[in-house]
């Protein structure tokens, strides 16, 4: 299927692409056809810097199980550091 469902986040961070490190300004999260992963559907993450062209992109495709594991690991990591926001809010710039 084409789920079309896409979470679109305006956020800033750094990622390393095919060339070098760049500052991304958008993140997309969606469950749809992968480009490469040997799965019918995958959880896909794109970190983009549209101002630097379409190739300024970090792309990740994972199974739902792997995506949950990563998400849980991120939450566990944040929870282990007092003073960090424990709920979703405005992405830090």
């Amino acid at each position, binding site marked *: *299927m*084409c*789920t*079309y*469902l896409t979470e679109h986040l305006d956020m800033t961070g750094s990622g390393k692409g095919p060339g070098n490190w760049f500052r991304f300004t958008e993140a*997309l999260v969606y469950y749809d*056809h992968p480009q490469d992963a040997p799965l*019918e559907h995958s959880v896909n993450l794109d970190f*983009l810097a549209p101002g630097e062209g*379409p190739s300024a992109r970090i792309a990740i495709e994972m199974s739902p199980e792997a995506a949950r594991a990563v998400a849980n690991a991120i939450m566990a990591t944040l929870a282990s550091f007092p003073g960090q926001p424990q709920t979703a809010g405005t992405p830090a710039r």
Partner: protein
Amino acid sequence: MYDAMISETVMFPAHGGDGIEGYLARPLAPGPYGGVVVIHHMPGYDAATKEITRNFAAHGYLALMPNLYYREAPGASPDDAAAAARSRGGVPDDRLVGDVAGAASYLKALTSSNGKVGVIGYCSGGRQSFLAACSLDLEAAVDCYGAFVVRTPPEGAPLNVIPLMDKVGDLSCPLLGLFGNDDQFPSPEEVDELEQALKAHGKTYEFHRYDGASHAFFAIDRPSYRPEQAKDGWQRIWTWFAKYLAN
């Protein structure tokens, strides 16, 4: 039999007069041949859809696949272009129609054209194939498991995708539909609903629904590939286009 063919990237005028890229594959003999506009799936203007385009040329058609994401990402790799297009909300319907119209005109202008053009699309391109056939004067159309022809996308979908049931009466040409019975987008119930609407409007159509197949069963590079169903589907496509596009 002389069976040489050529495939190459071309630029052609599309929606709004924009010059966009397309992948053209055609037999080198003088013809005349029917034309096919190939609409790529959501993952984009990729190697697999170029192979499909060449397959049409190998079977005696002039085939042109527009790069629907060219405006967002000229020169980018297909996957980066698909991500850029998704980030900007996808391909607007009016732009899609204009791009297919431009591709059809390009094919008709080739000296080896017989003046007939059809359209085929896969996945999101299945819906777009139906949209083009309801918006343009074409000779034949094929919808391979296009979703959201009948129903509205799930809430929260960011793309500019609306159902097309109000356009069924405008369908300009015979429609071949190929669907997997395990697919949820479109579901078998949606396929039923589309078929009823086509019947009600007295349209010429033929639907084939495959057990044991879900979405994207033609995609040979994906786990969803179903060789038996895809082989039968290709035969249906060749028969359909031979009937309506060949001389």
